[in-house]
C-alpha cells in the first residue's frame, strides 16, 4: 500500500491537488469555526454559488475569474449587510436562499451557452481538484497565508466581536473593523476555494470540519486544533483513495469528513 501511496503523490497533479486541498481545508475550517458559531453557515453556500456565477460570467466574457468572482462575492456581502441592517422584515436566511437560487439559475444559463456545456455545470458544482496547477497553489498560498496569520494574531478580538459585539464595542473594541475583516476573509476563502474546487467542496470544508471540531471540543483552542486534525487526514487519505479506486477526489474527501463526524457523534453518544 505504501508503495502505491508514494506513487500516487509522485504525480505533479496529485501533489497540486494535495497542497491546494490542504490549504483550502485548513483555512476554511479556521474561518468556518466562526461561521458555524455565528450561525451563518447558509451564507457559505450562498456566497459559494455567487462565486461560481462570477466564474461562469468571467468565462463567458473572457475576464479574470479570480477578480470577477471575488468582486461578486464582496458585492453580495455588502448587499446582504445593507439589506439586513436594523429590524429584519424577513429572516436573512431567506434572502440568502433567494440569492443562492438566483445565482444558480444564472450560472446554469451562462454555462449552457459555454463550450463545456453540461460538463461546465458539473465542474462549477463539484470542481476538479486534479486540474489544479502549481500556479493556482501559489496564488492560494498568497491569498490564504495572511488570513491564517490574521486569525492567529487577532483571535481574541475576533472571538470577542463574534461572541458579543455589542459589549465589545461598548468596552472600546473596534468591532466594525473586526467584523469587516471577518467577512472579508469569509469572502476571500469562499471565492478562491470555489474557483479551484467547486461549490460543493468549498462549502463542505467551511462547515463540516468546524462542526465536528465544535462537537468534540470544550475550548475554542481545542476546536481549532481538532479541525486541523480532521482536515489533514481526510484530505490525504481521501485523495489517495480517490487515486487508488478511481473516484472523484472532492467526493472521497468529504466522505472521510463524514466518517470523522460519525465517529465523533458515536463517541458523544448522539
Amino acid at each position, binding site marked *: 500500500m505504501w508503495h502505491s501511496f508514494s506513487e500516487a503523490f509522485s504525480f505533479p497533479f496529485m501533489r497540486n491537488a494535495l497542497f491546494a486541498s490542504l490549504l483550502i481545508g485548513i483555512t476554511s475550517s479556521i474561518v468556518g469555526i466562526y461561521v458555524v458559531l455565528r450561525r451563518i453557515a447558509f451564507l457559505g453556500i450562498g456566497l459559494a454559488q455567487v462565486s461560481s456565477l462570477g466564474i461562469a460570467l468571467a468565462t463567458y466574457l473572457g475576464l479574470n475569474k479570480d477578480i470577477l468572482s471575488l468582486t461578486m462575492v464582496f458585492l453580495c456581502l455588502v448587499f446582504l449587510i445593507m439589506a439586513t441592517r436594523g429590524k429584519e422584515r424577513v429572516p436573512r436566511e431567506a434572502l440568502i436562499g433567494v440569492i443562492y437560487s438566483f445565482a444558480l439559475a444564472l450560472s446554469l444559463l451562462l454555462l449552457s451557452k459555454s463550450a463545456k456545456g453540461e460538463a461546465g455545470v458539473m465542474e462549477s458544482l463539484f470542481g476538479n481538484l486534479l486540474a489544479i496547477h502549481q500556479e493556482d497553489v501559489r496564488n492560494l498560498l498568497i491569498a490564504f497565508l495572511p488570513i491564517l496569520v490574521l486569525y492567529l494574531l487577532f483571535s481574541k*478580538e475576533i472571538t470577542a466581536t463574534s461572541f458579543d459585539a455589542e459589549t465589545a464595542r461598548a468596552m472600546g473594541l473596534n468591532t466594525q473593523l473586526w467584523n469587516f475583516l471577518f467577512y472579508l476573509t469569509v469572502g476571500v476563502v469562499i471565492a478562491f476555494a470555489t474557483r479551484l474546487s467547486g461549490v460543493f467542496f468549498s462549502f463542505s470544508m467551511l462547515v463540516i470540519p468546524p462542526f465536528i471540531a465544535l462537537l468534540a471540543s470544550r475550548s475554542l483552542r481545542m476546536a481549532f486544533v481538532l479541525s486541523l486534525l480532521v482536515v489533514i487526514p481526510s484530505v490525504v487519505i481521501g485523495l489517495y483513495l480517490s487515486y487508488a479506486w478511481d473516484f472523484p477526489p472532492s467526493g472521497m474527501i468529504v466522505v472521510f469528513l463524514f466518517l470523522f463526524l460519525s465517529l465523533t457523534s458515536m463517541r458523544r453518544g448522539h
Partner: protein
Amino acid sequence: MEMKRLLLEFRDVYLGYRGEVVLPSVNLLIEEGDFIGIVGPNGAGKTTLLRAIAGVLKPMKGQVIIHKPNLSLGYVPQRSLLEETYPLTAMEVVSMGLYKRVGVLRSVRKFEKKAREVLRVVGLEEMEKKLYRELSGGQKQKVLLARALVSEPEILLLDEPITDLDIASQKSMLDFLTHLNKEKGITILLVSHLLDVVAERAEKIVMLGDGKVVSGKRDEMLSPGMLREFFGLPRRGA
C-alpha cells in the same frame, strides 16, 4: 448639600434606527454615584437609551456630552441575546472585559489574576474553568457582570440583569449592585421592566413610554400621576 460631579449629559438627543425616531428629545444628567433605574413598558426604548449611553448607538440629533475625560464604562447586555454555543470558559468570558486594556497582539494571560479576583468577588471562584454555556442563569449573569467589572468601570450599565432570575438570585444581584454603588462608588444604570424591584434600590428613575423620557428623583417619579401616565396603573402598595 454636597454637589455631585456630572459625568454624562444628554441634550435634546434623538435616538432611533434607520431614520426612524424611537426616542425624541432625550434630556438626561448622569452624576457620579447615581443609582438610576430605567423603567418602562416593553418596547418603550429602554435598551435603545442604554445603548446610546454606552456609545454603541449614535444619536440621530442632539449632543451627548462626556464631562469626565476617559470615562470608563462597563456594559452588561441582555443575557438572552448572547449566543450559547461558544466553548468559552467563565474565565475566558470575564477576560474579554480586559481586551481593550491588554491591547492587540498581546496575550490576556498575565491579566488572569485580575479576572480570577473579580470572579471571586461575584462568588464564582470555583467556576472559572466551567463552560459559560453550562452555567445556570444566575451564574451566567454574574459572569457577565464580572466581565464588566474587571475593567474597573466608573459607570456600570445593566440591561435587564434580574429578568428570569429566581427571587433569591434577584435579591442577591440587587444587593451586590447596591454594594458596588454605596461602597465602591460605581455609578449604576439599571434597565428593568420590574418597576417595584427597581424602585426599592434606585435613587433616580428614568421613565420611558410612548416616545417620552422623563427623569427625576424616585419619590417624584413614583407619584400616582406619573405611574398612570407611563404604566396605566397605580403602583402596588403606592
